[in-house]
């Protein structure tokens, strides 16, 4: 495999509702910023790939308009996934592995504000047995949280602690949406949103976007003083039907972690795509992370959760800390579907 690294990143300030800008106006400054940071000419990328969702935008072919922001003229080699941008990065990484590209621009974005997000996400269920019941994303997560609590994987107290820790960590993240939290004891006094989940257990609804630049080998070294090398990357799916799954574990994460080589060295930080507090202990266990591993120093999705971007942002948060020299090895996780159905794991490392 070729050495491929994240050499530049940029993201929006994440907000509840970006009511002034449309999608292309929201993502354009981020794309411009990452291109300038990368040192690659605007028209010099060998490949471009993006991730977004028509259902989120509420219109078909919603990605066509955002293509304006990458200056696809003269024409470019380009593709799009109807998934989180972490999978757009994966496609770009594969493209570089084929040898057809040395550099790639990857971006993704999501505006959840136009629709009723939990209701929109209910459309992501089996059309025959589940979708007609309109189960919201929070309802499904609550079923999983209940199972996890009953199995002793977590507790409501532990979940409140995770919420508190995530949102106070986010105070140091200039892009985060939620940057403070009441004490866990006060959180525990709140009403249930969907028992056993309280509001603090759920990621906020967010508008935002993210962009990164990938480069291979010496190209990466020439453009970045300390590239964040992708040492391993893999993604796997679990089944869809909740009653067929053990919701308290994540076999797909364990497979992807093994393929990505998470255990091949010490992990200093993990940025996990935890849309709900109970995801953290499930993921920690499936990844085999020790108690000493710092999880979501950025605050994670519990502090800002732009759909279709929040997974790629996990990679950005690990890469930024490698770029700065703060850490040498970290793991990033992205998820898609309900109850952690589809998971991507990447191991990022600095050199030397």
């Amino acid at each position: 495999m070729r050495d491929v690294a994240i050499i530049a990143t940029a993201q929006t300030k994440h907000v509840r509702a970006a009511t002034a800008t449309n999608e292309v106006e929201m993502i354009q400054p981020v794309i411009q910023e990452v291109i300038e940071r990368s040192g690659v000419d605007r028209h010099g990328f060998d490949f471009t790939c993006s991730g977004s969702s028509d259902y989120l935008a509420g219109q078909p072919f919603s990605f066509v308009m955002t293509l304006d922001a990458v200056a696809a003229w003269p024409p470019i080699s380009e593709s799009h996934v109807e998934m989180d941008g972490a999978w757009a990065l994966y496609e770009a990484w594969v493209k570089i592995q084929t040898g057809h590209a040395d550099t790639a621009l990857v971006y993704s974005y999501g505006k959840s504000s136009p629709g009723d997000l939990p209701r929109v996400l209910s459309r992501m269920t089996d059309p025959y047995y589940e979708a007609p019941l309109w189960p919201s994303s929070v309802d499904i997560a609550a079923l999983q949280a209940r199972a996890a609590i009953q199995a002793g994987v977590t507790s409501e107290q532990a979940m409140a602690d995770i919420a508190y820790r995530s949102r106070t960590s986010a105070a140091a993240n200039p892009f985060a949406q939620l940057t403070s939290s009441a004490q866990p004891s006060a959180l525990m006094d709140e009403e249930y949103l969907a028992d056993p989940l309280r509001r603090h257990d759920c990621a906020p609804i967010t508008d935002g976007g993210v962009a990164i630049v990938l480069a291979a080998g010496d190209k990466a070294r020439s453009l970045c003083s300390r590239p964040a090398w992708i040492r391993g990357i893999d993604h796997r799916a679990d089944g869809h039907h909740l009653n067929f799954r053990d919701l308290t574990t994540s076999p797909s994460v364990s497979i992807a972690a093994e393929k990505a080589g998470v255990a091949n060295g010490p992990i200093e930080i993990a940025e996990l795509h935890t849309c709900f507090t109970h995801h953290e202990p499930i993921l920690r266990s499936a990844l085999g992370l020790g108690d000493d591993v710092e999880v979501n120093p950025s605050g994670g999705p519990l502090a800002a959760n732009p759909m279709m971007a929040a997974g790629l942002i996990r990679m950005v948060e690990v890469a930024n800390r490698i770029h700065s020299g703060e850490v040498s090895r970290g793991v990033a996780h992205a998820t898609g579907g309900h109850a952690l159905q589809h998971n991507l794991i990447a191991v990022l490392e600095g050199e030397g």
Partner: protein
Amino acid sequence: MTDTTSSQPAPIEIPEGVWSQPAVNMSAVADLESVEAVRSVRAFASMTYDYTPGLATTRFLRAIKEKRLVGERCSETGKVYIPPRGVSPVSGLPTTEQVELGLDGTVVSFCVVNLDFTGNAQEIPYVSALILVDGSDIPIYGLVREIPYNEVQPGLRLKSVWVEDSELTTSFENIKWWAPNGEPDVPASDLADYI
């Protein structure tokens, strides 16, 4: 809602091929053989979205409410876009300079439509044209009326026909259609760069 009453679909003729269904033990559902099959499941879905027009479109719509057409210029190529979408697709940079356009335009190309795709066509056939608004560099689609459909040609000069001033809103529908303005045709060679 489960629909068991719809008529049987035409039997599908599966071509001879190499494919075969995997063997499935159907004994558990043997009793269902006499039950009428479910032919379709209709699940009605309705969702409401509040769309954001964005900065450039908002500027455009505010102008169109005042019976003005305002495009935006690409800072790199100087080309003027209508309707503006906020970013020049050629430079990838925001368009910030507004350009007052004319209310007349020129047919670049067109088609004659013989079915009512609008839901309330005034006449069939009708002409849907690519129209280059004066002062802009990219054509928009519009309805051409007040001329026999078989007399529309590229180069035909048009004026925009608007709703009554009292009915003006922040909508493209302020322009009801386009109609000949009586000026001489523009030579086709002048339009070559716009299609």
